[in-house]
Every structure is written in structure tokens, then in C-alpha cells.
């Protein structure tokens, strides 16, 4: 059973939640789309929102938990303001993504999957962003930075 994250600021303003839920019909197949909507809005799945969703769809809380734990894009812990995503796809792997990841972990002081205490960054991985020709690549939010080496890594706005 997932616990709420002790460090998570649970004081999330959920006033808009109702409207967000009602933007989709209360059907079981809207479970994943709604979880994604909640994730996008709050950068994680606040406990109260998950409960609200379970009620709205009339689905057992256990099922909502199970689905929210299954998919990697969903998180019970708030993500940082900026997402740093290292591509660990095949082409990037062959062109040095593991070393790049190590360097980024050092630079940000975060292990893969972690969010900094100040909430500024979350370090994640992705698998292929379609820019294999520019491997190895890192995404800062939606921006792709390619052909990274020690020098260009130092130039990233982190």
C-alpha cells in the first residue's frame, strides 16, 4: 500500500479538483486519463485528489492506488519545478549515456528518480526522444539538448 510521502507538502490547493474531474465522464476507462490530468496539474497525485477520484469514478481506492503505482509517469511524490531527463535509450547508451548520467547525478546532487529538497529539479530518465543522431541527449523540461560532452554539460542551465 503506498504511503503518502512524509516530506510532501500536503497543503496543496485542491479547489480546482472538482472541475478537473468533471471534465471527463465518470467512467472506469477515464481512470488513467484523469490520473494523468491530476499529475499534470499538481505535479504529483495528492492523497486527497486520489480519494476524490476514487469517489468520482465509483472505483475502489485499492484499484486507483494500483493503477497509479503501475504507470511510471504517475508519482505520489511532488516532482521538481524542472524535469531533467537523461535519455537512456539504446543509441544514447552506446554513446555514453551512463557516464553522462553519473555526471548529472554529481552536478545536481541527486540520484536517478530523486527530487531535490529545494524542489527545483527532478532527475529522471527517458527512453529515446527520437534524437538518436544527437546522442547522448538530455531533456530539460521539453527542450532537447544533444551531443553532450563534459564541456556542453557544463553549459546546461542547471
Amino acid at each position, binding site marked *: 500500500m503506498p504511503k503518502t510521502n512524509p516530506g510532501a507538502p500536503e497543503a496543496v490547493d485542491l479547489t480546482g479538483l472538482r472541475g478537473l474531474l468533471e471534465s471527463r465522464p465518470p467512467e472506469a476507462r477515464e481512470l488513467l486519463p484523469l490520473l494523468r490530468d491530476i499529475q499534470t496539474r499538481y505535479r504529483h497525485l495528492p492523497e486527497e485528489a486520489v480519494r476524490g477520484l476514487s469517489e468520482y469514478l465509483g472505483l475502489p481506492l485499492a484499484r486507483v492506488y494500483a493503477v497509479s503505482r503501475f*504507470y511510471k509517469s*504517475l508519482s505520489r511524490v511532488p516532482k521538481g519545478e524542472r524535469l531533467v531527463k537523461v535519455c537512456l535509450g539504446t543509441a544514447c547508451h552506446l554513446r555514453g549515456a551512463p557516464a553522462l548520467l553519473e555526471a548529472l547525478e554529481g552536478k545536481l546532487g541527486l540520484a536517478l528518480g530523486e527530487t531535490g529538497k529545494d524542489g527545483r529539479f527532478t532527475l529522471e530518465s527517458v*527512453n529515446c526522444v*527520437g534524437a*538518436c543522431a*544527437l546522442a547522448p541527449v538530455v531533456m530539460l523540461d521539453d527542450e532537447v539538448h544533444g551531443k553532450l560532452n563534459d564541456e556542453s554539460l557544463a553549459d546546461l542551465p542547471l
Partner: protein
Amino acid sequence: MRFEGPAAVAARREELARKDPDVRTLRVCGGPGCLASGSRELLAALKEAAVASGLDPAKRRISFTGCLGLCERGPLLELDPEGHFLRGVAPSDAAEVVGTALGEGKLVPRLSPNPESPEKESLEFYGPQKRLIMRRFGKIDPESFDDYLATGGYEALVISLFESGPAETLRRVAESGLRGRGGGGFPAGLKWKAMTGAKGTPRYVLANGDEGDPGAFMNRSLMEGDPLAVVEGLTIGAFALGAERGIIYVRNEYPLSVARLEKAIAGARARGLLGENILGTDFSFDLSVTEGGGAFVCGESTALMASIEGREGTPRVKYVRSTEAGLWDKPTVLQNVETWANVPLIAANGPEWFKGIGAKGNPGTKVFSLAGETRNTGLVELPLGTKVGVLVNVVGGGVRKGRRFKAIQSGGPSGGCLPESALELPLDFDHLTEAGAMMGSGGIIVMDDLSCPVDVARYFTGFLAEESCGKCVPCREALPVLREVLSDLTRGSGRKGDTDFLEKQAGLLKETALCGLGQSAANPVLSTIRHFREEYLEHESGYCRSGRCRGLYVPVIDPGACRACGSCQKVCPAGAVGGKKKEKRTVAAGKCVGCGACLKACAFFAIRAERKEHVG
């Protein structure tokens, strides 16, 4: 806006064809590779320059287009109708490109890879290609419905609805021999026929746009480059199969694909090409997009359906076929998005035409994403049955200068590695499977002598261990064990007998796993052992000849081959390379951190990865 019948579609197409002959369009590649090299900024700069130079926007247009393929040299441009192909275009080139190319239809030679013959087809990268699925990439704005219509869009649906009828449409697809492009290569026609006798409504057609292979982007390029082709394919399929509803399932990481598909669907619906009574007939069909949540296993057919239903995306045992009881237990046909994009071509041109392309038993083309160590990389479409060597050495231009070809990896995590002898192999479903690899989705990675097969096997096994859903025991338990042993081998803690152990465990997994993920998870391991056993045995005793596995080798510079250029010294992060300017260099083994940078940097093959024990 609604087309009430086929005549209205034809009339509109004619109207578009009669467009001002004087129109010229700059098409900026909007494929994922070029977007990453800044084509969005380029597009903005070009538009700005066009406004500044006072060109008539109705006659001098600038738009995004689908992936032009040669990602390596991006951002890319194509000038329509001249066909001039420009590469490496920067925002600072905008004024010149707008003035010379867009304004006057002339070539900007310094931006052309081949000014003598400025069409892209003159380049060896494009020479052997046959762009059918990608035929509109470079020719249309993927967000423009009119562009799709003007390039023959919806001709096939009209033929199916008003000439062929459902039975003939199904026959065409069945006889064409079209095989699923999502990896398995199962004949689409067999699946479709299985649905004809099934009971229950509504019936569903689904498109798989999950593209789970971690090193591939051809489905993404299709959904973003020609989304309406997927929509039209599904519509024709639904007509042949009597389906009322369709869903395109798109991978979580592809927001632009979702946006483009949704726009395409809305455009088709507004014109009466989706929804009730399509083109005035009694055929009704509608389509929507569902986004995944980030799980590789959701690409598997039963898991995908579970995910759409709002459950955890885990596979089930296929006692009952999806064509009888699929999504919500209703008859369902699922095909990959590229399979669907082939359907309009077949419905319009017939099975004989389709069989005339590609190889026997493997008709048509396939889109590949070519990555790794070749000189050219990018998105490629070839007739099935093209020799692997043509892909690597002609399209790819061979491996980079000074390196030697070692292997290709095809099919991603379910596929395998093939050695040099594979260059003679025809690239099709059957030959690759026979050789122990797999076509998979079409991801092809070229490995050179600095790529290590053990490391590649560890990479894919690690990926699959992460992605295993844990439902069946063999997959859940065996993958972490395989990963552990492979990690040991690549970290220098391998043991004698590890290779045999891997072979046995991987074989067991193949036979006992519940779904395709586990069943094919053995392929990367088994294929690399089969073709590179010697390198595995070397790893057991702590040596990596590729200079890839850290700590398992020492770089040694051959004084006979060293040209004293110093490039190894420049890249060494540890100061382990000694020697002054114009002197031959040497490596201090004690200082080396084993990053392999010097091996990659040497253009003269002068550095070898030696066994540690052999170095004093």
C-alpha cells in the same frame, strides 16, 4: 465543410490541384531529431525573415513537415516544388534562405550537401530508399487537412466505400500479404478474417502507437508526419471489418503525436469522414486517442487493452483471441500504426501492386530508425528484403572513419545482435528471426569494434528487468538474475561458467514466460552469446576487448601506428596520456580510469584495449 459524397471530395481535390502554379513552399523538417537541433527556432526565424522581405504569404509559404530522415545533419529543409534539399540550416541563414530559395527558387549552394544535384534523392543515404509510408514527409504540412487531400488522401476510402465494398476491401488486404509492422510480422489478413465470424457489438479497431523499443522513433515520426494516413487506414479497416469504434493508443512520451492525431481526427470528423454516415453512406465510425502511462509492457496487445479499460496494463494468457473477445470483451483488431498506414495504399492500388514491392512473403516497405556508429543515421524506409549491408554501408555510409563494423542490433529489447555475416542477409521478418534476431519494430543499431556485445545484452536485460510487470514468475525472477550476472561480467567480477549459466537460464525463460516480453527477453542474451561467445568468455576472465567495460582493459598505444597527433591526450580526463607535442604518446596504466575516450578519439587505430595482465 462536410463532404456529402465522393464527388465533393474529388471536387475539393481538384480545386486544390488548380492552386496557383506560382506557389513555392519552404518545408522545415519537424521530425524529432531536427526539433532537437533547433528547427522550431529556425521556422520562427524564417517566418520573420519572410515578413521582413515583404514576400506574399499566399504564394511564398513556410511550414513544418514530417521527418526528412537525415537527422544527423539537421535542421533540414526542402523547397517545394524545386525539390532542393538543404541541411545544417541555422537561424542566421534565414534571410539568405528566404531571399534566394523561397523568393527566387534558387539554390543556396553552401547549404546543399550536393550542389551539382540538389535533390535529396541524389545522396547515397536516400538512393536505395523507397519512401511509401514516408511519401508525404517533406511534401505536406502534417497539420493541414487540405495538404493531405491534395496528395491523394482519402482516395482509398472512396474506392473502398463506393467501388470495393467491405468484402473486396478485406480480400485486398488479405491477399496483399501485409504483415504486422509492430514486430511480430503476423499477417494482417489472417487476423481480419478471424474477426469476420465473431459476435458482439460494438467492434473495435485499435492502433498501437506505443513504440516501446527504447531506441526507435519511426512510429512517432509517422504519427507526427502523416497522421491522417493512420486515421484513413483505420477508417478503411473499420469499414472492412464492420467496426464502429477505433482507438489509437499513444505512448506517454509523445505529446506532439497526440496533438497531431487529435487535430487530424477533428479535421476528418468536421468533413464527414469520421462520425455518422461517412460520405453519405450508412457506414458510421469514430475514433479517439488514448495516452499511455509509461510502461513498456503496455505495447503488448492484451496489456494495451487492459490499459485502455482503465486497469493496470498487464498481459493475460491468450486462451481467447482478441478478434473474438478483445477490448471490453468485444471483437477487436489491433495493428501497429505503420500497418494501418499501409492499408490505404493497398485498398487503392490492390494486392498485386503491393506484392510487387519488397520480397517474397515479405511484401512492402518498412521504416527503420538507423542509429549507432554509421556515418549517416536517421529515419530510413526500405523495401523489405533489402540486404542489411545496403542499409549499413550505402544508406548509413559505413561505420565512422577508422572504425570496424562489428554487429547490428535489430528489434530492440526483443531482438538480437548479428555479426558481420549478417550484412549479406535480406532485411525481412523471416531471415532476421532465423538468424536469432528479430525485425521488431524496426530499430537498427550499428555497433563498431568499440561496442561490446556483453554490455548491449546487459543494457537490454536491465531495461526488461525494469519493465517486467511481475505477473508471471519466470520473467519476474529470471530477468534480475540475468541482469546481475551480466553486470558482473561487465564489471570485472565475472566467473568461469557464467556464459553457460546465462545460456541455460535465458533458454528457460524463453520457454516459460507468459507474454512476448519474457519470451523474447532472452533474445539479446542468446544472440550475443551465439555470435560473440569468445567475447563472453573473455569477460569471464576480466577482459573486454572493445574497451567499453570500465576496468576490464588498459589502452595501449602502438608506437608504429601513432602519428603523434595528441587527440587522445586532449580527451583523457585523467591525465593518463603522456608525451610532448609531436612525440608519440603513451598511456600510464596506473592513472587510466578506463573511460575509453582515447580509443574513440584515435583516428589511426593506434590504440588497443589490452588485457590488464599483459601490460606491465
